[in-house]
């Protein structure tokens, strides 16, 4: 019963998100699209020297029960959900795959193409779509509202300049940017207390968010040795080493289980590029 | 016909006080309200949150400030002396006492700066490193009130320095005492405010 619901809602989410943002960068269902979009910018990189990273975020054990969201005071939004009503999105598991994990190369990247294209963050039926979004520093984030009611978008980064803007009606858009790498930037809507999104800002295009099935793929990564970090809002971070070869596909998967809940979840950490070594290092603010 | 044309009355001449002095009195009324606003807020906040205040002397260095208070009171005396000298046309007295007043005021400021540096660098309050304006209501009210008083002293010292320079040029004399008197009014006011602040901030 429970997993049936998750399948259905994840599928619904995917459809809505696809319709709304046309496969914008970093959206949860379109990790591949995301990498694809980074490709033109990576034109300077010799195609013969790049590879792909792909893998899964796996979830083992009991899937925690998500709380129901009481949207009864917002009938228009509530109508967008099935009989079970809207549920929280903290842990979305489908067939053993964990969605909404933000994966990015945290060490080993030397130089990166500039940001291009825009990432999209939509508000659909009083939820953020996608729930977790990755962007490159300086990249445009196009925030739009598909609900014909008030949302405010209150981003509270620690390294970047935050913003608190509102979109009172459907069709209003706003373009924002984060200039500095920061994992993660929490985004909330103060009108609807349950609405929460996370934006991971890194200063290269090698990142992805796992889709509903838990899979991700990052294309056009220059060959080399890297450390990857995976971030999840409930389970914290874990890292993996990965070696990318020209024309090859490297695999890196992350295994989660319910016992990891309550782990330290990094928020608002700056990512600092060490120029001497060209390594990116996480600088904890807390 | 209370207001009918009435001629031949003795014309009114305003107060028998020269304009600059009236102006300074009026201005000081405004200053009273400014400090009343700050001190009133302090009282309200302190009553509302009594436990966030330190015991007198725990954080603040009362002896040093008491000495500083003494300096400021002395400067009021020398200010009076300067005015008296001016009235008598005693050029040497004018120079001496204006200079003394300026120096005492400047010393007061110097001690206050020293006090601030000590507080910010070496004191702690409720676990914070250094006693700063961000250190609770206690720090906020302390620095706001003494800071604005210090700012007033600074303005006074600048004017006094200027008056002293003029004294050396022989500007003041028995026929030209107004400037010193008006400046003296301001200086006594600043002194008086400090006595109030010293009592409520340092001693209570």
């Amino acid at each position: 019963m429970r997993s049936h619901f998750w399948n259905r809602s994840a599928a619904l989410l995917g459809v809505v998100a696809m319709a709304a943002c046309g496969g914008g960068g970093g959206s949860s269902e379109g990790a591949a699209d995301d990498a694809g979009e980074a490709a033109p910018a990576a034109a300077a990189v010799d195609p013969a020297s790049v590879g792909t990273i792909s893998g899964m975020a796996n979830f083992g054990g009991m899937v925690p029960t998500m709380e129901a969201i009481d949207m009864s005071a917002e009938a228009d939004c509530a109508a967008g959900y099935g009989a079970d009503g809207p549920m929280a999105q903290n842990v979305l598991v489908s067939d053993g795959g964990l969605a909404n994990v933000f994966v990015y190369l945290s060490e080993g990247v030397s130089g990166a193409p500039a940001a291009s294209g825009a990432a999209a963050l939509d508000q659909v039926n009083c939820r953020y779509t996608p729930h977790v979004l990755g962007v490159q520093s300086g990249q445009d984030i196009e925030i739009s509202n598909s609900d014909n009611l008030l949302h405010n978008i209150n981003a509270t980064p620690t390294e970047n300049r935050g913003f608190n803007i509102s979109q009172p009606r459907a069709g209003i858009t706003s373009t924002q940017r984060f200039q500095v790498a920061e994992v993660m930037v929490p985004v909330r809507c103060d009108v609807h207390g349950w609405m929460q999104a996370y934006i991971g800002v890194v200063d290269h295009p090698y990142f992805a968010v796992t889709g509903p099935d838990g899979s991700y793929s990052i294309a056009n990564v220059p060959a080399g040795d890297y450390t990857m970090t995976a971030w999840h809002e409930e389970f914290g971070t874990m890292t993996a080493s990965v070696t990318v070869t020209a024309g090859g596909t490297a695999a890196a998967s992350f295994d989660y289980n319910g016992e990891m809940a309550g782990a330290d979840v990094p928020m608002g950490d700056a990512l600092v590029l060490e120029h001497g070594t060209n390594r990116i290092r996480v600088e904890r603010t807390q | 016909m209370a207001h009918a044309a009435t001629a031949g009355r003795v014309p009114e001449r305003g107060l028998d006080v020269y304009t600059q002095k009236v102006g300074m009195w009026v201005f000081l009324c405004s200053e009273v309200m400014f400090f009343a606003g700050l001190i009133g807020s302090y009282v309200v906040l302190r009553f509302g949150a009594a436990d966030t205040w330190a015991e007198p002397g725990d954080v603040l260095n009362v002896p040093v400030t008491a000495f500083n208070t003494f300096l400021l009171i002395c400067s009021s005396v020398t200010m009076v002396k300067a005015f008296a000298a001016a009235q008598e046309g005693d050029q040497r007295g004018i120079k001496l006492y204006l200079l003394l007043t300026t120096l005492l005021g400047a010393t007061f400021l110097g001690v206050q700066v020293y006090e601030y540096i000590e507080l910010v660098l070496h004191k702690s309050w409720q676990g914070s490193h250094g006693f700063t304006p961000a250190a609770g209501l206690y720090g906020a009210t302390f620095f706001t009130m003494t800071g604005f008083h210090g700012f007033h002293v600074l303005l006074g010292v600048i004017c006094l320095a200027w008056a002293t320079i003029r004294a050396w040029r022989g500007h003041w004399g028995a026929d030209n005492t107004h400037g010193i008197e008006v400046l003296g009014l301001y200086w006594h006011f600043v002194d008086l405010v400090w006595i109030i602040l010293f009592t409520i901030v340092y001693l209570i």
Partner: protein
Amino acid sequence: MDWALPPNYSTFGVVIDQLFWIILVITGIAFLLVEGGIVWFCIKYRGREGARAHYTHGSNRLEIIWTVIPAIIIAILGAHSALVWDDIKGSSNRPADALEFLVVGKQFEWNITYPGVDETLGTADDFTVRNQFHFPVNEDITILLESEDVIHSFFIPELRVKQDAVPGMTIPVWFDATQTGNFEIACAELCGLGHYYMMASVTVHSAADFDAWQASQAPAAAQ
């Protein structure tokens, strides 16, 4: 265009509305006197060639009359207002065994904590519902009003209730609805960009309906 006070559903509303209409009548008479007088004077004493105004500096008798009469009216109004105000807000008139709710305003939601079946706040069966305020009719209701962030104002027009919610304070507000119905809580104090949207539904139930509603919510809270 219907310029009227919304229908009243509370015990306090009766006196408030009464006072409103009393003041409207008094000020209405004053309004007609003043505006009528001005128009009349403008017509009657409009300038004519060769005319000369009546020379007078005033009349002490008139001054006394139009000082004393407004003062008396105002003293009566003031005394009446003060009594009504004390009835409504005086802390000695706070109902002793009212049903208590905790209402917390935050940008931009009203979160209402219900006392649960035991009718006591602060116990395990309390539960919190966003933007929905249900309470029984004909019963003294006291809300403890708080705010998480900025100043909000709790306003239910039909119940003639308005009280600012101030962060750092818990302010008791009491009222008694006389009929069942559905209303809204509005925020009446500018609280940020979502101020206009800070709205919650109010449902006044019959006692039985309220118990039923509370029971329907309780299982979720009991977990």
